[in-house]
């Protein structure tokens, strides 16, 4: 069978005019909505020349925002990775009651507004939150501090790895693992030697998406961070502050760094999808 069942059916396809019109329409639409914003980011960043661009990036507050963003991602991504593996092991390899409820709950953060994702932690740990006074008395600050930023990021990136792994592991079934156990492998050996090699590309894919969101999250982090320059400002927040101060070049300089991260993510994603299509296809509904 040829790879593409549609390209070889000329007799019932659209005529060349319709075809061209549709392709043109799609390209025009994507250009206006995707390519143009991307171009705007880079052109605005370089609007006042390369020097101004570099100055925006090397400003101490910008550097500290970059550092915080990396730190937050370095905490949130591994946490959600461990969670994703545990959840998909339990859900994909076992049958138990209430599985679909658990699946729905794991997806829950996807349907919660980012602002609410931050709000729920403010209500718990903020100054007027339920634990606020107690935390203040013990000298612990979560909201308007780094722990709050980490928590909010963990919340919004919560489902990413699990979402990729569960369908993939479900599709792979349990026979390989059962064979390993019957051959005398321990549970941990089975996971490391049998399951992990089967899911590694799906895992990487999930981590990639999780990381992109962790570094780019704005709404949830904005609510809990307090926007303290040099302290609780992540890169996306720093972009906002600079923009609101009409420091457009610096804002777009930091934004261009984030856009670059997005482009790298997309490229890596495309390569993974192309090279290991079968191993990650399961996750695409």
């Amino acid at each position, binding site marked *: 069978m040829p790879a593409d069942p*549609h*390209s070889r*059916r000329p007799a*019932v*396809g659209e*005529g060349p005019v319709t075809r061209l019109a549709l*392709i043109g329409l*799609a390209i025009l639409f994507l250009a206006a*909505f*995707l390519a143009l*914003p991307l171009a*705007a*980011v880079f052109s605005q960043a370089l609007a006042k020349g390369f020097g101004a661009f570099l100055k925006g990036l090397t400003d101490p507050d910008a550097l500290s925002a970059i550092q915080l963003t990396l730190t937050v991602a370095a905490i949130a991504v591994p946490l959600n990775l461990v*969670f994703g593996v*545990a*959840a998909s092991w339990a859900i994909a390899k*076992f*049958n*138990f*009651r209430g599985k679909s409820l658990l699946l729905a*709950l794991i997806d*829950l953060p996807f349907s*919660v*507004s*980012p*602002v*609410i994702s931050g*709000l*729920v*932690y*403010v*209500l718990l740990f903020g*100054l*007027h939150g339920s634990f606020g006074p107690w935390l203040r008395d013990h000298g612990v600050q979560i909201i308007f501090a780094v722990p709050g930023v980490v928590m909010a990021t963990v*919340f919004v990136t*919560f489902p990413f790895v699990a979402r990729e792994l569960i369908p993939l592991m479900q599709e792979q079934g*349990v026979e390989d*693992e*059962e064979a390993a*156990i019957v051959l005398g492998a*321990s*549970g941990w050996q*089975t996971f490391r030697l049998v399951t992990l090699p089967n899911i590694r590309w799906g895992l990487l894919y999930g981590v990639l998406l999780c990381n*992109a969101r962790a*570094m*780019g999250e*704005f*709404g949830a982090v*904005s*609510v809990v961070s307090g926007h303290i320059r040099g302290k609780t400002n992540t890169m*996306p927040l720093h*972009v906002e502050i600079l*923009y609101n101060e009409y420091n457009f070049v610096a804002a*777009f300089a930091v*934004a261009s760094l*984030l856009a670059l991260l*997005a482009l790298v993510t*997309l490229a890596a*994603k495309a390569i993974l999808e192309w090279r290991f299509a079968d191993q990650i296809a399961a996750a*695409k509904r």
Partner: protein
Amino acid sequence: MTAVASGATVRPAKRGWSFLAPTILPGFGTAFGFTLAYLCLIVLIPLGHMALRAADVGWDRFWAITLAPRVLHAFYVSFGCALAAALINAVFGLVVAWVLVRYRFPGRRLIDAMVDLPFALPTSVAGIALTAIYAPNGWIGALAKAAGFKIAFTPIGIVIALVFVGLPFIVRTVEPVLQDLDAEVEEAAASLGATRWQTFIKVLLPAILPALITGVALAFARGVGEYGSVIFIAGNIPAVSEIVPLLIVARLEQYDYAGATVIATAMMGVSFLMLLGINFLQRWTRSRHAR
């Protein structure tokens, strides 16, 4: 799926309620326990706690806050713009998915990869970029200004931001369905005398519709809660272009926790009801489909 074979030596598993189906694989307890604990800690307890705080406010005050004109209008803007954007995406997202699946042309791979940009680009970056383009002095904004209307700082700007955010949801849900369509069905329609358009409307669209509705629902849900990409382009003019998430943030900044909680809970409630409705619609379209 059950590994229990029939036979004299194998006794049927004990009847009655059992939480876990029989298995020889280890690690369920640890994995499930960790999953549940983490889920509760990160998601369920904080969300549940918010609902409790909303309940604390009391019925009368809850409605007083929610039904204030400014809040109501924000709801109207948020849900209306999200719906409009989702419907625009339903059309253009379908075109994009169709073109990507069915046609081969130079740059197709690049375009395919680019469709996910809104997933990967931080929302604040998208927000300022869109504003730069659609503001009256921006590339497209200037054109619009010359034509006598404004895009940024109006609900139109919000819709544009939400179209950006929602596009991949539609494309990525419709794509696999388009891919799996049986080409012979289209040929059957053609040999029965249907035009291309008739084939699309009567044969293809009904097959795509459930996925399209799913995509619209996902894009809509995302659009309602969207914050970062909207606030820059919206201008946030009360009773004109103010969205609900922004209102929540504003209340928080004034340490009005009760107000923020009530509005957030109401928003989740309305979203939930709408998704329920969409789910119902979907079941209905699916039930007319192969059973």
